[in-house]
């Protein structure tokens, strides 16, 4: 896929790298025993450690280590059995220690890869540069008081994984696909809930442009973009800005920018944000973080099947198209749902019902697959009713709609509403005879070779039976009766 910005002086390519901050799923914080739950009253989930009181010391949460390793394995990345926590020093109202404990030179996870599934069914590989553990900051609220900023430290010290991609993406769509795929993997792994609205997954976007074939040019970092759509918009805007600056003979300064979703623009953070000198050094309150192969292997053994493997299996075992497989594995719950439906049934049929009918209905309802009024067992039973001839495809769709509305079992609906397909040839023959008798001219036309009219007869018979007749039986009988 090519995405080229056509400037006045020629074509420009966009270079994108993403830094994702993913909040680790854990009960307690990275270095303190305070809770991590979202939405608590201000400063109630704060220990003296999180508030940076004198003499307070960090002790690492085993779960954070485990989750980081699990995520690293999910990203097919190198796990560093020895890593070091470093302090990143800067002053800010919501950074009580005056430094953030992070990892700098020796992160817990090194090089990895992530496969993008593009909308056209193709795939692309993006390199993962590193993943490291760090503390989240607190929250500043600027709109509570005319002259003061309020600070809530509930989030201070919550474990984050910073996942840094290589500058391997070239289009806003790829950046979107990266975020969606990363989120899918994190959710499969159970290491982050991926909720961008609540801020448990946040994204910094690095954007630069260049002439095709050129080396990298200066990049700008757009901080804290909080939805996939905004990330894509921010990239588009920022790339165009760079092209304009270059084409007007200007220079891009390396800087941090903010995305304004209202205006669809990025703007410079002109204050001291840009004058940072973080003075990283190993945190003397902590020793190097070390673990052995056995620890890694134990986690590896507990890994779930991840989207890429699942997708390949769906293609191989169920004969699905790459597109259907991609759609189904995007959320683990959908994939599980599909597999329940497909069990002992035709995979493609099951996939069709899930991706088209079910997802369509859920979309309208604004519900996720876990909240579906129709269970996988019920959808399977519906398909069974088609297979055993109880329902025609058309009837089945009607039954499905009632299932979505009522949540009832398909058999119950068919029974109560008499929606059973008519396969009794006597009844069908009777209907055919009536239709033929009323339309003898058309019967003659068919016999004279106008085969296409057969379809019209089928329709009339179906009408006469309120759609309950088995269309195949109708067809067969019609041919026999008209053509002999």
């Amino acid at each position: 896929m090519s995405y080229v910005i056509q400037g006045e002086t020629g074509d420009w390519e966009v270079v994108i790298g993403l830094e994702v901050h993913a909040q680790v799923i854990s009960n307690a914080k990275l270095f303190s025993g305070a809770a991590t739950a979202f939405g608590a009253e201000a400063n109630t989930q704060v220990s003296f450690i999180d508030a940076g009181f004198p003499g307070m010391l960090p002790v690492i949460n085993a779960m954070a280590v485990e989750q980081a390793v699990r995520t690293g394995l999910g990203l097919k990345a190198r796990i560093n059995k020895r890593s070091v926590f470093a302090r990143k020093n800067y002053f800010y109202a919501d950074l009580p220690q005056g430094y953030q404990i992070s990892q700098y030179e020796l992160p817990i996870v090194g090089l990895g890869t992530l496969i993008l599934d593009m909308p056209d069914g193709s795939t692309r590989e993006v390199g993962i540069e590193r993943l490291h553990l760090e503390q989240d900051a607190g929250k500043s609220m600027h709109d509570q008081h005319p002259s003061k900023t309020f600070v809530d430290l509930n989030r201070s010290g919550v474990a984050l994984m910073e996942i840094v991609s290589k500058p391997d993406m070239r289009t806003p769509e790829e950046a979107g696909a990266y975020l969606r795929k990363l989120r899918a993997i994190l959710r499969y792994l159970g290491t982050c809930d991926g909720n961008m609205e609540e801020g448990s997954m946040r994204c910094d976007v690095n954007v630069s442009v260049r002439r095709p074939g050129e080396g990298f040019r200066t990049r700008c970092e757009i901080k804290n973009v909080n939805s996939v759509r905004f990330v894509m918009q921010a990239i588009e805007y920022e790339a165009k800005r760079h092209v304009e600056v270059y084409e007007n003979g200007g220079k891009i300064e390396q800087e941090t920018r903010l995305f304004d979703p209202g205006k669809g623009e990025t703007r410079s953070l002109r204050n001291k944000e840009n004058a940072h000198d973080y003075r990283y050094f190993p945190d003397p309150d902590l020793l190097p973080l070390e673990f052995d192969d056995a620890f890694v292997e134990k986690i590896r053994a507990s890994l779930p099947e991840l989207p890429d493997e699942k997708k390949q299996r769906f293609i191989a075992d169920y004969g699905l198209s790459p597109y259907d497989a991609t759609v189904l594995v995007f959320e683990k719950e959908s994939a599980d749902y599909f597999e329940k439906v497909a069990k002992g049934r035709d995979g493609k049929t099951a996939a069709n019902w899930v991706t088209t009918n079910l997802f369509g209905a859920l979309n309208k309802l604004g519900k996720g697959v876990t909240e579906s009024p129709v269970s996988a067992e019920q959808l399977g039973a519906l398909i069974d009713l088609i297979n055993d001839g109880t329902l025609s495809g058309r009837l089945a769709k009607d039954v499905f709609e009632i299932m979505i509305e009522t949540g009832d079992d398909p058999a119950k609906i068919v029974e109560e509403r008499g929606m059973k397909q008519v396969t009794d040839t006597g009844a069908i023959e009777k209907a055919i005879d009536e239709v033929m008798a009323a339309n003898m001219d058309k019967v003659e036309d068919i016999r004279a070779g106008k085969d296409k009219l057969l379809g019209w007869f089928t329709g009339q018979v179906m009408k006469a039976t309120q759609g309950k007749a088995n269309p195949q039986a109708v067809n067969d009988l019609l041919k026999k009766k008209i053509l002999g």
Partner: protein
Amino acid sequence: MSLDNTTVRNIAFLARIDVPEAELPQLADQLSAILGFVEQLGEVDTTGVDPMTSVTDMALRWRDDVVTDGGIQQKVLANAPDAIEGFFTVPKVVE
């Protein structure tokens, strides 16, 4: 290494410590003297030496993922110079 007033002013800003202009020259002299003193480290051949990361030979201990702390809002805010409605406050920050 000799530090000039501008450098000292920049370091002081990085450390967020207000230094009166009048004190800069003496401070620059003192800091330069200290840096001059530590510069003898350059004499030591440290080729192939790993920097010390911890004085003890221990490995980092891990804590269980259990909530054992927090729920002490009043204690956390007890010493705050200007806490309002359960929040710490600072002069308004304009982003």
